[in-house]
């Protein structure tokens, strides 16, 4: 198996909590190393406590074995720390199409606690007249918002 085949197989592994994007889109696959049919994948966790981490490992192993790997090792690295800034423009567009407002740019280092909330545009109608209903949505990494223009609720992928 060569690295291109492995990357292609990984690009088909959806994020368990946001199936609209793959784990490659998410930027958590940091390195793929192939020696014959043995593949070592280096991943970095999104959030330290993300409950999907174990499932992602299992999905990676299954996808690569299905693609012909005889042995799959999944290695975890913490550095450099994952950030939502790594999501590409295309990935952000797909999140929005899926009804999830993509994360805005992360705060600069050393920023003070934020006591105002940035305006998050509605992924459905684009209006900026939105309000946060809850700091947590279906998953801890998303907040629940409501658009006061089109009245639709939506989730906001929080920047980190």
């Amino acid at each position, binding site marked *: 198996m060569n690295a291109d085949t492995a990357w292609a197989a990984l690009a088909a592994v959806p994020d368990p909590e946001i199936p609209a994007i793959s784990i490659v889109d998410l930027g958590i696959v940091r390195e793929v190393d192939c020696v014959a049919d043995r593949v070592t994948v280096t991943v970095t966790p999104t*959030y330290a406590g993300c409950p999907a981490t174990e499932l992602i490992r299992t999905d990676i192993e299954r996808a690569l074995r299905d693609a012909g790997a005889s042995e799959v090792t999944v290695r975890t690295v*913490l*550095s450099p720390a994952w950030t939502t800034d790594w999501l590409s423009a295309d990935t952000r567009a797909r999140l929005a199409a899926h009804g999830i407002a993509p994360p805005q740019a992360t705060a600069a280092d050393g920023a003070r*606690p934020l006591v105002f909330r940035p305006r998050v545009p509605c992924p459905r109608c684009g209006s900026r007249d939105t309000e946060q209903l809850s*700091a947590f949505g279906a998953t801890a990494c998303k907040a629940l918002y409501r658009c006061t223009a089109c009245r639709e609720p939506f989730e906001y992928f929080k920047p980190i």
Partner: protein
Amino acid sequence: MLDSADPALAAIAAKSRKETRYHCEHLAEWVLRLGDGTDESHARMQAALNDLFPYTGELFAGDDTDAAAAAHGIGPDVSALRPAWEQTVPPLLAAATLEVPVATPFRATGRSGRHSEHLGFLLAEMQSLARAHPGATW
């Protein structure tokens, strides 16, 4: 910790800082909402603050392990963290209309293994299940 001589700790620190920033935002919003909320929420917040504020002194009192870590560039000098805390926490409490309790000489010593009489009752409570059902698994 970002500059720790231990690469694993430095990596954990870089990861944690991003998430901690988020926790700080979340916490700041609740402190403001409850402190500067109704008379009832304000009174409860002030009472809780009065109860727990004396323990904040412990945050900046390192032990021998902290001192050794700082000396080897592994961890921070915890006493040096106070100015940053002073710049962040009291202003937030003030914005939430809460009064910062006056400093007392009390210092918690739990980290150095010297506990008050309360610990015995806590341990008894926490051990009650295992004592009532030895070897229980679930």
